């Protein structure tokens, strides 16, 4: 009887810890999902004299990828971002984060530029409004300007196939 208790308690502890191990502590649930995307006006990476504002995103589904030339995981996810852009499900734009133009532009030239364009957040100030705490991060923003999905860390083909593409298809059906 007592043995059953001890074994039961131990099994419960094992299950608890096992579940804990499968969770990724780096994935902090974002409070921004379902909220309007924070407003910004940022210069373009390629053309410093031109700016792009968040208001211009209204009326369309967008994918926004926060990246930097100094970020190694960005290089890892680059093929996935490229595939996502090529799928044509939604325009993919980049937010270049705390980077130097002299580094970022050659990086795009070297690795290919999947983005429609990149906005340039040199100080990372806008990224803070988007709750960015580690590049790369990827957002799906709907036509009403609401953040519908956020992925932290490098995109994988699984995330693209199982999460982002179904969401993009659903959103384009809605609109």
């Amino acid at each position: 009887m007592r043995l059953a208790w001890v074994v039961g308690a131990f099994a419960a502890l094992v299950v608890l810890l096992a579940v804990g191990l499968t969770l990724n502590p780096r994935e902090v649930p974002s409070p921004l999902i379902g909220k309007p995307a924070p407003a910004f006006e940022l210069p373009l990476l390629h053309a410093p004299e031109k700016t792009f504002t968040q208001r211009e995103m209204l009326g369309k589904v967008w994918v926004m990828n926060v990246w930097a030339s100094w970020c190694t995981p960005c290089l890892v996810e680059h093929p996935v971002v490229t595939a996502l852009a090529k799928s044509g499900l939604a325009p993919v734009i980049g937010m270049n984060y705390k980077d130097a133009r002299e580094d970022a532009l050659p990086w795009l030239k070297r690795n290919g530029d999947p983005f429609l364009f990149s906005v340039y957040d040199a100080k990372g100030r806008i990224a803070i409004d988007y709750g960015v705490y580690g590049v790369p991060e990827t957002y799906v923003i709907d036509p009403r300007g609401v953040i519908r999905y956020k992925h932290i860390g490098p995109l994988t083909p699984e995330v693209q196939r199982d999460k982002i593409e179904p969401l993009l298809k659903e959103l384009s059906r809605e609109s």
Partner: protein
Amino acid sequence: MRARPAAARLLAALAAGLAALAPLSWAQSPAQEPAPPVAAENLALDKRVAGLAHELRCLVCQNQSLAESNAPLAVDLRNQIREQLVGGASEREVREYMVARYGDFVLYRPPLKATTLALWIGPFVLLVAGAILLWRRLARRRAPEPPLSEAQRSRAAKLLE
């Protein structure tokens, strides 16, 4: 015996050296004393920034507070805290600003709500459960042994022979 005068001489030399240094330290402190009012203001601000940074979690190195971490994001967020305080925000407003972007996770002191209930009352539930278990155990131990029956008594006597 011979070592003593040498030691004494060394001590004397040390004392002389300290005496020579003392005026220097005296000369230095008054010069620092009349702090400009701007610095005092900054000091108070620094204190408020540090206070907030200590209770906010750095999201890059999650076991450190914003105050302890040197991650670039922590530096940016500390600057954000300072900027907001200078702009007249209250401590609560700064906390709300961080929570709006990073969620309750940034707070080292999580708020009491339905999802954090287990976190807040869990330790007390465990404490009470532990106390009950302990009490029951001690009560059982304190209960007197049941008296032996005649048969047990004679068996014990036989065994002891």
